[in-house]
């Protein structure tokens, strides 16, 4: 079969997979009833209703505040952290690096539960503080807390891109400045900082964009005081009219995508610009680290403090909660320790299924996803055509949908296309939703690995007589074996951490830990939630350990 036909088929499937959910959502937003309802008519009523709702605009405004606040917090902290790690003699950098990236892999819902349990009004830490100073100086359910927590949790995102940019800086520019007489700190400010501006700008837009996608944190932390962001507003819409109203939900989705899609494309442009500043000069130019003097210990302490607040407090909180019967004011911790909640997990067949499904989706689903991403990446690998741009944009489209929305859209796709309906209740629907949502990420992982194969290795095969397809199968793919394993691990971690995408697809047979956590939290089964969260954390931790042992670079 001519290679062009294979390539076209692969890309056509990808295009359909990407465009179907989005188009369906758009279509639904212009109907008066669920699209499978024979009484549905074309109308703008859904838009009118939503735009007339003050709650909608409040949610929109809150989302803007949260996204903006997060960026304002994460950007400077992340940049400073990157600078400290890459350019100074901060002690302990070797083990700090993987530590800093851990928040990337913790499920947001788990984090949120942990905060409630640890820092809530009757949280473990709160009660101690109250005993000490008589009151609790914070309110975990306020908008401020939400913004602060979200901001702190996104520091690693900014760190990743800024650190990569700093590392890629050709040191001869800095050295030239040094030779003409500028001291090391001056060099940092006047030479290094402007050079990483594009990367920082990119990271800023990324964090702002992620603010629109937040679901787990606002769901758990915003609920008590009725704080709504667009995603949780969407989640709540289900009951507004008493009857689930798909058309209203579709309108909210359209609004969210209208905001996030431009952000996604802006990111692409910014990333390109940022990469121009990164000179990939192979042989590891050793940049002399700037001395911090006595400030190194202050810096280290600050970083550890950030890590404690962002990771240790919530995870320790949720772990502790999973081992106690009850907690709060007047409860003595030592008296209530128990393993019961873990035993209880066994009583819930859907929870057991959920754990197994999560493993299956992570391991098997992850492998299959990697194969799909590879097929698509190979199809555009070294393809001289304007179409690669189109494919790139297509791949980015699902990124504009928050996971929650993607799962919903996937549900509707399965409902709409009758032949697919039986698959809706199987794990396949969840896997498909995950694979589509993370398409851009997965493709970037694989493409990056593919590009490491020198073009001459492929060209030599071509001149010897191997067709394009044979070359890819005989030469390119075998050479990136290691890259596959690394990608598989990263995808495994992403899939296991996932929680929002599976929410609307949740049902018997499609349970995964993440969506179960959301659902169980909704029913208030905090015992189960804690135990299950710990299971999730352990799974991810194991995955991370394997990845680190194998030397997989966690930046993606």
């Amino acid at each position, binding site marked *: 079969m001519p290679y062009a036909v294979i390539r076209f088929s692969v890309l056509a499937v990808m295009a359909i997979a990407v465009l179907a959910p989005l188009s369906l959502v758009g279509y639904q937003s212009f109907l008066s009833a669920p699209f499978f309802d024979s009484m549905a008519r074309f109308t703008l009523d859904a838009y009118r209703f939503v735009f007339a709702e003050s709650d909608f605009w409040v949610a929109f405004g809150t989302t803007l505040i949260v996204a903006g606040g997060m960026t304002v917090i994460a950007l400077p902290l992340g940049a400073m952290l990157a600078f400290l790690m890459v350019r100074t003699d901060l002690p302990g950098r070797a083990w700090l690096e993987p530590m800093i990236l851990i928040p990337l892999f913790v499920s947001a819902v788990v984090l949120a539960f942990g905060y409630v349990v640890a820092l809530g009004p009757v949280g473990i830490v709160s009660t101690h503080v109250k005993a000490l100073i008589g009151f609790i100086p914070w309110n975990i359910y306020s908008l401020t807390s939400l913004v602060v927590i979200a901001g702190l949790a996104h520091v690693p995102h900014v760190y990743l891109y800024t650190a990569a940019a700093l590392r890629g800086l050709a040191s001869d520019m800095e050295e030239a400045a040094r030779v003409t007489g500028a001291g090391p700190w001056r060099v940092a400010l006047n030479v290094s900082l402007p050079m990483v501006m594009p990367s920082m700008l990119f990271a800023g837009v990324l964090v702002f964009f992620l603010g629109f996608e937040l679901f787990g944190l606002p769901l758990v932390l915003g609920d008590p005081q009725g704080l709504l962001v667009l995603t949780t507003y969407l989640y709540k819409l289900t009951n507004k009219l008493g009857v689930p109203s798909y058309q209203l939900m579709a309108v909210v989705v359209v609004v969210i995508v209208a905001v996030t899609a431009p952000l996604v494309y802006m990111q692409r442009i910014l990333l390109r610009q940022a990469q121009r500043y990164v000179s990939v000069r192979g042989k590891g130019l050793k940049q002399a680290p700037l001395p911090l003097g006595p400030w190194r210990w202050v810096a280290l302490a600050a970083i550890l403090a950030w890590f404690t607040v962002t990771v240790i407090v919530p995870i320790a909180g949720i772990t502790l909660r999973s081992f106690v019967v009850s907690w709060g004011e007047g409860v003595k911790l030592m008296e209530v320790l128990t393993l019961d909640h873990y035993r209880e997990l066994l009583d819930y067949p859907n929870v057991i299924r959920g754990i197994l499904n999560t493993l299956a989706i992570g391991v098997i689903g992850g492998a299959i996803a990697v194969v799909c991403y590879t097929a698509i990446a190979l199809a555009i690998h070294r393809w001289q055509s304007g179409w690669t741009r189109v494919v790139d944009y297509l791949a980015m489209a699902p990124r504009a949908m928050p996971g929650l929305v993607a799962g919903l859209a996937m549900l509707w796709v399965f409902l709409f296309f009758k032949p697919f309906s039986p698959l809706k209740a199987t794990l396949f629907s969840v896997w498909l939703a995950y694979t589509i949502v993370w398409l851009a990420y997965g493709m970037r992982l694989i493409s990056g690995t593919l590009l490491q194969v*020198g073009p*001459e*290795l492929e*060209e*030599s*095969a*071509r*001149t*010897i*007589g*191997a*067709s*394009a397809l*044979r070359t890819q199968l*005989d*030469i390119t793919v*075998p*050479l990136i074996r290691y890259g596959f394993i690394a990608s598989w691990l990263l995808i495994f971690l992403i899939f296991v951490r996932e929680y929002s995408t599976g929410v609307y697809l949740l049902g018997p047979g499609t349970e995964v830990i993440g969506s179960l956590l959301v659902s169980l939290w909704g029913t208030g089964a905090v015992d189960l939630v804690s135990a299950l969260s710990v299971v999730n954390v352990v799974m991810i931790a194991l995955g991370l350990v394997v990845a680190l042992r194998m030397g997989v670079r966690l930046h993606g």
Partner: protein
Amino acid sequence: MADLTVHSLGLRLGDNEILRGVSMSVPRGKVVAFLGPSGSGKTTLLRAIAGLETPHTGSIKIGDRALFDASRGINLPAEQRGLGLVFQSYALWPHRTVFDNVAYGLKLRKVSGDERKRRVEAALTHIGLGHLAARYPHQLSGGQQQRVALARALVYEPPVILLDEPLSNLDAKLREEARAWLRQLIVSLDLSALCVTHDQVEAMAIADKIVLLNGGVIEQEGTPTELYSQPRTLFAAEFMGSNNRLAGESAGGGKLRIGNDVLEGVARGDAPSGAPAVGVIRLERVKVVDAPGPNRIRMELKTQMYLGERFELVFALDKMLIRAYADEERALGSHYVEFPKDALWVFPQG
């Protein structure tokens, strides 16, 4: 086996015209070298012949069979051209043994296992690496890798073999041995070969014919002797060999006036009297003498450098610097430098 002919090939990369109408041929059984500075288009031309770049006009044929013909819309993909290509970096596949690297071409052509084994082993023995068949490329030296790359390209007996800077990755010492060996191998196999190089010494040593490229067009084409002794343009003259450049004015009929001296040389191109002209003479033709005479200029010996097999002397007169060779040291100070008439080429400037 037939001639490889290239006719009026034009190739654009983005907005750049890399090749601007190149026509040449590789006669059967001959070695042709593409020579030129970087950016001249020589590598692009090679890759276009191999099918790795696509020209927009012209044709590439082997005998009557067209590999590329813009007017007829023919553009065979690389894998169907049946040529051999040896890359500058050798491009051996690291995940396959030497044997598998070489056997790949035969496997693609569906040669049976036994036959394949026989031919691969024969090829490896021919290049002297039969004992390394089971090794992996990273276990071989640079020179050995180069030979494996050659064997890989030759094993399926292509009509023409293309080599991209085959010796540039080798150490200086190895290069001299390797170029002899390479030429010998190609000649003994009666192959047609096309070799890209930036090193004119290498080109002259290996090739039967040199094609000198400059800015996407052919500057001059001919045997090494022709190119070395009878350059047609200033560029060709200065590219080959080690030269002295004398800037001055034409005095008509191949005469060059430099300051107060007039030298007689061979006119190359038309330089009307009074127009600026450039004299070019190979270093080894410059003679150092002790007495004035025709075509001799008095100059100061400023420096001399010992090169091992000879001395290189640097003379100066006002702003003009002349380099010459000598077998022995000379005393610094005033000497006469002779520019033999038949060795001095006078080109119009510009």
